[in-house]
Structures are given as structure tokens and as C-alpha cells.
């Protein structure tokens, strides 16, 4: 597969993530969409690394995986707390930050 194809796939995955965040209301879908976007970025790193023929991009891909794992961990904890407080994982009603 050419680099162009990889970049196209990454864009498609990224916008699936954006679309997911904009249309779904559950906090879990937010997390999953963010994972999708991060992975699309990861795909770009690896694709360009292959195109250039060196390993630098792979290094960043590993960083992002570690970061994504940490983010998922923290995100899930927040969702658990949010659920305990509201008995719901729908985020639309969370507006305290605007006050």
C-alpha cells in the first residue's frame, strides 16, 4: 500500500472519531472516539516513518500508545465517579464549568 492510501485511511478514521464525539452522548463513546483519533494519528506516524525509511516515527507511535492507555485509565475513572454522582453516563447535562 502506498503512503497516500495510509494517509487517506488515517483521515477517514480520524473523522469517524470526530463524528462519534459530535453525535453520541455517552461518555464511553467519547473515550472510544478519542482512541480512534489517537490511533489515526499513530497510523500517520508509522506510515510516514515507513515512507522515510527510518524508525523515528515508530518511537512516537509507542509514546502515543502509552499515552492512550493512561488516558483511557484516567478517563474511565472519571466516568465511574461521574456515574456514581449522577447515575448516568450522559454528558450533555454536565454544565457546571460554565457557572
Amino acid at each position, binding site marked *: 500500500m502506498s503512503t497516500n492510501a495510509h494517509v487517506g485511511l488515517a483521515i477517514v478514521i480520524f473523522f469517524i472519531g470526530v463524528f462519534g464525539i*459530535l453525535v453520541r452522548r455517552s461518555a464511553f463513546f467519547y473515550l472510544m472516539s478519542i482512541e480512534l483519533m489517537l490511533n489515526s494519528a499513530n497510523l500517520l506516524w508509522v506510515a510516514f516513518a515507513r515512507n522515510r525509511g527510518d524508525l523515528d516515527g515508530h518511537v512516537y507511535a509507542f509514546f502515543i500508545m502509552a499515552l492512550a492507555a493512561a488516558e483511557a485509565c484516567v478517563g474511565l475513572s472519571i466516568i465511574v465517579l461521574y456515574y456514581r454522582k449522577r447515575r448516568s453516563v450522559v*454528558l450533555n447535562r454536565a454544565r457546571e*464549568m*460554565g457557572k
Partner: protein
Amino acid sequence: MDRLTMEHLLWIIPMAPLAGSVIIGLLCALSPKRGSFPSRTFVAMVACLGPLTSFVVACGVFLALGKSSTVATIHQTLFSWISCGTFSIDFAFEADRLTAVMIMFVTFVGTLIHVYSIGYMGHDKGYARFFSYLNLFLAAMLVLVLGSNLVLMFLGWEGVGLCSYLLIAFWFDDEAKAIAGKKAFIVNRIGDFGFVLGIFLIFTTLLKSGPASLEFSFLAAHANVLAPVATVAALLLFTGAVGKSAQIPLYVWLPDAMAGPTPVSALIHAATMVTAGVFMVARMHFLFDLAPFAGQVVATVGIATALVAAFIGFAQNDIKKVLAYSTVSQLGYMFIAVGAGAYGAGIFHVFTHAFFKACLFLGAGSVIHALHEEQDIRRMGGLLKKLPVTGTTFLIAWLAICGIPPFAGFFSKDEILWSVFNTWGTYGKVLWFLGLFGAGCTAFYMSRLVFIAFFGENRTPSPAREKIHESPAIMTIPLVILAFGSLAVGFFGVPAALGGSNLFWEWLLPVFGAHEVHAEHATEYLLMSLSVFAALSGILIAYVKYMRKPFIAAEPRGIAAFAAGAFYVDELYRRVLINPLVALARVLLFRVVDVVLIDGTINGIAKAASVAGSLIRTLQTGSVRTYLYYLGAGAAFLMVVVYLGRW
């Protein structure tokens, strides 16, 4: 003491009183229990030590200059004060023969008045503050006199103005006295504004012909460059002198300045500060020499002031007010002299006046002290018997100011009249005649004061009457010394016609150049006898009017009431100048400029920020989803921009 040694010691003269002022001021401000420390003895010692040190060094300067060549000066540069491109002003002191005379009598009279104040202010709760201000005044006055350039002179000029304000309003919890202080300050601002403009004019004119400096030596050497603007510059500088030396139309602050403690009136408002204007004109004599018209204006203002103040003095009943108007009048004489180019005569009158007027004021202070703050001469009388030392010294100073030979005032006043008689042809003769008339008036109002206050029956109401006592020695000794001075200092300037050698005139000759007078001795004898005749007739009229019958205090009527009200000049100024200015300030400056323009701008900026904030605040909803929409929209916008714009 030779000249080179003095070049390293000159700084001590102004700095010794300054050090005293700072020490007393700091100790007074820092002492934990107000009034207990520093002790009065300590304050008195420090306060008198500064002026005394200055006096000793001033004597050294005087002797060193006497031994040097006649045009020698003593110059000491302390540091570069203002430096900007090619223009620089040094903080430098310079003493020539004129300065030497000034610092001698300023420090001498200053020291005596400090000693006197120890007694006079002995019971005052602001004792330390008083001496701190008084020392600061002396330091500023000496900077004024010693400054080697116009700007440093102006520093001292403003410094004495500040101290004058602080000391007039010394008892600031009395509102009238606080207002008198403010009046002195504000009226002096008008004059100082002219002074500053004069300095600017001189500087810009000099700049047109290369690098300029404001050193007096430079100005004197480049006086020809100043010739085109000499009249305007001289008149602007003279405006400053009019304010500081209380001449028409700015004399109104000086009578009110009597609100201050009496030693202050003696030191600042009689002997030293108010003569700064005369000194300044003498110091800038090369400029006034180039501007004969300005000289005529100076002399005309001088004679007008001398006469008007004398007329007002006729009807005053406050002992200090009489002396205040007398000071204004005598300052007028000094300006007649310097206006006529007889700078030596003017400075000689400054010198003798410092002695006899300080003596009169301190004597008045002693009287006020003895009578427990009584200042009205209608409630005095017969004081010569009750206060023998004060009375005798007062009488000596009185004879001096009246111009009775051989007292000091005779020689100096006569020299002024003689100089003006020989200048400007007919106009000089007119000025001489008016001056002679003024001398008679001086003798009259001073004699009126003396006869009412010191002779006749005592009219002091009980219980103050029983408690009248002679002042302590610390007050009478300065009086005696000054009275001796009033008698003796005239002999420095005995004119040639009387077989003297006029040491004073010869001493100042290298500074001012010869003021050529070609006249017969016979004329001079005639003028002298006329002066003495005028003085004697003034005294005689006062004798007939106030001594022949017992004094009865009567309400003044007609012209006397007009004079008693000081010709209502203050009222005139209030109606014509102050009220319109206040109205202008209230309506235009306050309602329009301040409220609308300045406040409007400031408040408008605050209002704009507030409105913008309330608009932007609606964007912050707190919903994560909304933020994500913004994020998405922003990213899409950037993509469009990047792709369309090909950045």
C-alpha cells in the same frame, strides 16, 4: 586660610546646616515617644552648631578672598548634576566678593537668630521640628547664594520658598496661619514662573551660538549674545524677584507671612530670603546692564513699592505688620538701587537692613514674648521702662532704619538716594525726591510704632500687665549684638564725601565695575542734609502726633481706614483674579475637563472592557460538547484557510 584650601571647604557652608536639619528631623521623626527624645538641649546644640560652622567657614572664605587678587573666585565642583548631550550642569559652589558678603551676614544673622530661637521657642511643642526647618532654610539660602549656575540658584530659590511656607504655617492647627503659608507659596509660584521662563529664554538664546552653559561665569562672558533678548530676559528674572522680594504687585504674601514665629519673620522675611531677589539682580548685573529699560522698570517698581508699603505702614496696629510693611518698603529701596545700576549700594542696604531689621523683629518678638502673645501696639506703651534691654536695642535699630547718622541705615539709604540722583537725568531726580519723601515716611511710621509702644503710659490690660518681664539672656544677647551691628556696620560704607574710604564699595568694585558718579561734594552734602532733615521731620511729626498727648486708640476714618485695610489690595485681588479663577476652575476645569474628558475617558475604557467581557462570556457554556463543536469548527476553518490560501 588661603584660597586653595577654601576650594575644598566651600561645601561645608551649605551642608553644615543641612546636616543639622537632617539629624534633628530624623531623630524627631524616629523617636518612639514624641517630644521626649531628642532632648531640647541636644536639639539646640545641633541647631546652632550648623550655622556657627558655616559662619566660621564663611569668614575663612572672606579672608581668603581678601588676600587673593580682586577678581579671584573660589570654586568647588561637587558632582555633575544634570548631564544631557553637550549640556551639563554641575552641582558646584562658587564664591566671589559679592557672595562672600552675602554668606557672611546670612550665617552671622542666622546664627544669632538660632540662638534667640532657643529662648523664644523654648515652650513650644514643635521645638525640634522648628529647628529642623530653620536649619533647612539656612542651607537652602546658602545654596541660593553660593550656587555657581542659574539652575542651582533656582534650587536654593525654591528651597527657601519651601522653608518659608513650612515656617509661616508652622502652627498649622490655626487655619489662618496655614492659609497664610499657602498664600506665600502660591504668590511666589507666580514670580517663580517668570524666573523659570527667564532661565529658558537665556538658555535657548545661548544655544543659538554654540554649546551653552548656565554657569554665571559663562553667562557673564557671553553677555553680548544675550543682548538682543536682554530686556525681556531681565524682566522675566525680575518677575521672580518681585515674588520672592515682595514687590508690587506680588507683595501681598509678606504681611500675611507674619503668622509664622517671630524669629522666622526676622530671619526669612526680613534679613535673608526676601533679599534674594535683590541678590539675584545683582548677580545677573551684566544682563541688567544691557537692559536700561528693564532697570528703569525695576527702579519704578521699587519706588512704588517703597511708598505704597510706607503708606500702609502708617495705619497698622500690629507690631509685626508695621515691621512687615517696613520690610516691603525697604526692599523697594534696594530695587531702586539695583535698577539704577548701583548694585553695590543695593547690596549695602541689604547688608545693613539685615542687621537693623533683624534687631527690630527680634525686639518685637521679645515684646510679644514679654506681653504673652500681645501684638497690638494699642495695648502696649511705656515698654522702655519695663523692658530696658529690648527697648534700648529697639531704639537703636529704629534710629538706624530712620536714617539718622551715624547709624547703619543712614549710610546705605543715603548711598541709594545719591546713586539714583546721579542716574537717568531728570527721571533720576524724580526718583530721588520720591525716595527722600519715602525716607521721611519710614521715619514717621517707625517713630509712631516706637512712641506708641515704648513710651507713654502702659495700656496692657491685666493680668498680662503684672507679668511683663524682660526676656532671658539667650534672647537679649543676640539683640544687643544686632543693635551693635545696626550702629556699626554702616561704617563699612562711609562715603568719600564724609572722609571715609567706602570699604564696602571698594570690596564689591571688581564684581560690578565702577558705577561712575561725577558730582560735587557740595551736592552730596546738600542731599545728605536733606535726607537727615526728612528723617528728623518724620520723627518730629510722629512726636507731635503721638507723644505730646496721651495715646487714645481711635477707630481710623477716611484715608486712614483705607490704609489700615492695606488699601484693600487683597480684596481687589480676590474680586478681580481669584474669584474668576476659582469660577473658571469650578465650571470649565472641574465640570468639563475633569468630569467629562478625564473621568469619561477612564470610565469609558472600563465600560468597554466590561461590555466586551459580558459578550464573550456567553461562549463559555460549560458543556463539553459545545466546546468540541468550537474545536471542530476551528479545525475546519483552519483547513479551509490553509488549502485555499496555500500557506
